[in-house]
């Protein structure tokens, strides 16, 4: 479908801005592996200190890149299936909010005014503009969501009997979940952290801020994962040369994510006091529940790929794996999808370990955790973002991709890098290696009294993986920007591959309506967070603490300490 100039501009800004910042995010990621392996025994390189770089790496890669992509991809999906454009004012204001918020974050991070990492970490204080910027970015993404709700309402009025397309359902589910779960973090940043950071309030209830953050922090991981799922369900089958195995299963999987992703945030807090063991066990059960839609996805996507392989002439049980379109220049997207899926098998399984109540004690806050999430967020999520960014950039700007051969090998290289990186991090994590730590200054520095030789092998493996990922990223930036700055050759349009379903299934009304599931989700959120809030308020106290990252002096009067 042809698109207007203004929508085109918004989409191209929405792709280019995060990819540009991703240069900084990826650079800091590679640098961290060098520090951690003991190659750099310093607190800062080129004016960026380790923890400042860590903050940039987390905020840019995990919030900025993912949120921008979710919004751009959402626009593309909605326009493609509803055959109309969203409200111009809404999508423009939404992008302005997101860009301004991101710039505020970028400035505070680059100038070193925000070294509180992306989980905020009160009572470490960051600049209030960091909190406000993050909130603006999130509120901007809400506006895009509102514009899609209007589009869908119009479309449904005109086509009352049509099923909700899987991709539209996925997009609306994702943003409904996002909207619900970002209310607590908006409350945390705007009502608690910003006034406290300005110095208008003295006391802060730290366990409360942590509870509110993780209420958002876990749905956030599904928010960045679901666009990848939408691509796996609705784009991959066609790209592989087959059909989607079951549309209703896809719908059910998305709806299960809607009800189960918000109430499970407490599983990031198993090692904390002020939350009762019964709440933690309940959350473990719910988190096991949220693994079911991922298992379903593994089956449905696997079956769709098997169908595609057989159509291409595969016989026997596993022969279909060899009959898929790997390494094909004109089908470069396939590599991004398949490498992401392979990594996600291990990412998903290691996630079950994290979710497992007492087993979590073995891995909490060790290198295991980033090992796990690099196989999810740096696996399927980033690979789909990179692949689809190229695809969308090309069709929306009317420019063919430069260097398609390079674009084809990026995902394989990246995937190998992630495998090494995650293996090193997880092996180190099981030996107690802490995450978020500049190991090069102490534990992996032979001159330090804290030196631990066992962590050298694991951190070196990690560094090796990080450098491979870095090389893949450099190739990607080259392909992306050379495409962006090339000449327009065809009429800009939005065109996604047409989805066909293998089984002709009946329309199930419950699977085409988000509302009842959203209500159920709300009930489950209450089931976790009413008891959590009770224990947090009963066992946790507000404290008059406020610290800068490099100073042990309490910025609030220290004589108030009890």
């Amino acid at each position, binding site marked *: 479908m042809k698109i207007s100039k203004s929508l085109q501009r918004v989409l191209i800004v929405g792709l280019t801005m995060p990819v540009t910042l991703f240069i900084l995010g990826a650079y800091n990621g590679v640098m961290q592996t060098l520090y951690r392996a003991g190659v750099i025994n310093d*607190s800062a390189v080129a004016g960026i*200190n380790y*923890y400042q770089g*860590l903050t940039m790496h987390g905020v840019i890669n995990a919030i900025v890149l993912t949120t921008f992509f979710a919004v751009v991809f959402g626009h593309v999906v909605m326009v493609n299936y509803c055959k109309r454009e969203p409200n111009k004012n809404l999508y423009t204001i939404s992008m302005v909010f997101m860009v301004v918020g991101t710039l505020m974050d970028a400035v505070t991070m680059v100038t070193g005014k925000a070294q509180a990492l992306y989980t905020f*970490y009160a009572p*470490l204080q960051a600049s209030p503009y960091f909190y406000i910027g993050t909130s603006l970015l999130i509120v901007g993404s809400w506006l895009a969501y509102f514009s899609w709700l209007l589009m869908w309402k119009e479309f449904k009025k005109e086509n009352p009997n049509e099923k909700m397309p899987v991709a539209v359902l996925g997009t609306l589910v994702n943003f409904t979940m996002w909207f619900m779960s970002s209310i607590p973090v908006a409350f945390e940043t705007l009502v608690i952290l910003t006034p406290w950071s300005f110095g208008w309030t003295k006391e802060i209830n*730290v*366990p409360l801020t*942590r509870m509110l953050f993780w209420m958002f922090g876990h749905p956030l991981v599904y928010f960045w994962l679901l666009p990848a799922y939408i691509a796996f369900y609705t784009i991959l089958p066609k790209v592989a040369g087959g059909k989607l195995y*079951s549309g*209703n299963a896809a719908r059910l999987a998305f709806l299960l994510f809607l009800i189960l992703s918000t109430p499970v945030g407490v599983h990031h807090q*198993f*090692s*904390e*006091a*002020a939350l*009762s*063991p019964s709440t*933690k066990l309940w959350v473990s*059960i719910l988190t*096991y*529940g949220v693994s*079911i839609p991922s*298992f*379903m996805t593994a*089956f449905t996507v696997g*079956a769709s790929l098997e169908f595609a392989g057989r159509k291409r002439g595969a016989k026997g049980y596993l022969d279909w794996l060899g009959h898929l379109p790997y390494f094909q220049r004109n089908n470069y997207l396939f590599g991004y999808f398949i490498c992401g899926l392979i990594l996600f098998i291990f990412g998903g399984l290691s996630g079950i370990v994290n979710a*497992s*109540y*007492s*087993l*979590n*004690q*073995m891995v*909490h*806050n*060790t290198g295991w955790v980033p090992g796990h999430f690099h196989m999810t967020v740096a696996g399927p999520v980033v690979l789909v973002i990179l692949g689809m960014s190229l695809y969308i950039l090309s069709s929306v700007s009317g420019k063919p991709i430069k260097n398609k051969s390079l674009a084809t090998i990026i995902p394989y290289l990246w995937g190998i890098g992630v495998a090494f990186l995650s293996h090193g991090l997880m092996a180190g994590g099981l030996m*107690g290696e*802490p995450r*978020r*730590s*500049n*190991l090069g*200054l*102490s*534990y992996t520095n032979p001159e330090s009294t*804290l030196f631990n030789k066992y962590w050298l092998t694991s951190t070196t493996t990690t560094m090796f993986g990080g450098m491979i990922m870095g090389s893949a990223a450099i190739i990607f930036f080259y392909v992306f920007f050379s495409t962006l700055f090339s000449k327009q050759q065809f009429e800009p349009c939005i065109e996604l591959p047409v989805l066909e379903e293998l089984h002709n*299934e009946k329309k199930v009304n419950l699977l085409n309506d988000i509302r009842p599931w959203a209500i159920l989700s709300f009930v489950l959120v209450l089931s976790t967070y009413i008891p959590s809030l009770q*224990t947090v308020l*009963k*066992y*946790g*106290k507000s*404290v008059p*603490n406020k610290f800068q*990252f*490099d100073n*042990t002096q*309490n910025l609030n009067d220290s004589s108030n300490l*009890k």
Partner: protein
Amino acid sequence: MDKYELRAILMSGCLMAVFFSALLFNLYSRKIDVPECTPYTGIFKEPHVTQLDNNTYQAFVTAGMWAFAPTGMKFPKGSTVDFYLTSKDVVHGFLIEHKGVNLMAIPGTMNKVTVKFNEPGEYRIVCHEYCGAGHQNMMSTINVTE
């Protein structure tokens, strides 16, 4: 949905049920549990260790930027120690290597864990939560004597 799809869902449900039974087995038969709620009584003025009887101790530990107090904790082999942990400034971590002890020290809360030291040796306590510029140097040791 066809029958293979339903079987896949059923099988993954069963798998998770097996995992969950393993957690319950550990919880009730082997008493492996997560930290529970302990009332917050303020920061210890003097972080210290008290001996309750022959081989039972209580350790009142504060985490602060960037050291744990008290330092040089020493227990004889076979001791059971209740660690009470809080923070006097920002959020810290408390991981005792080889013991599977993994706690968060959060200002305004009191965390608690009970550990039995059966093997003599030096156990390292590593801070595993970002707590500012000196985070990577925040380590302490526990000495378990013969």
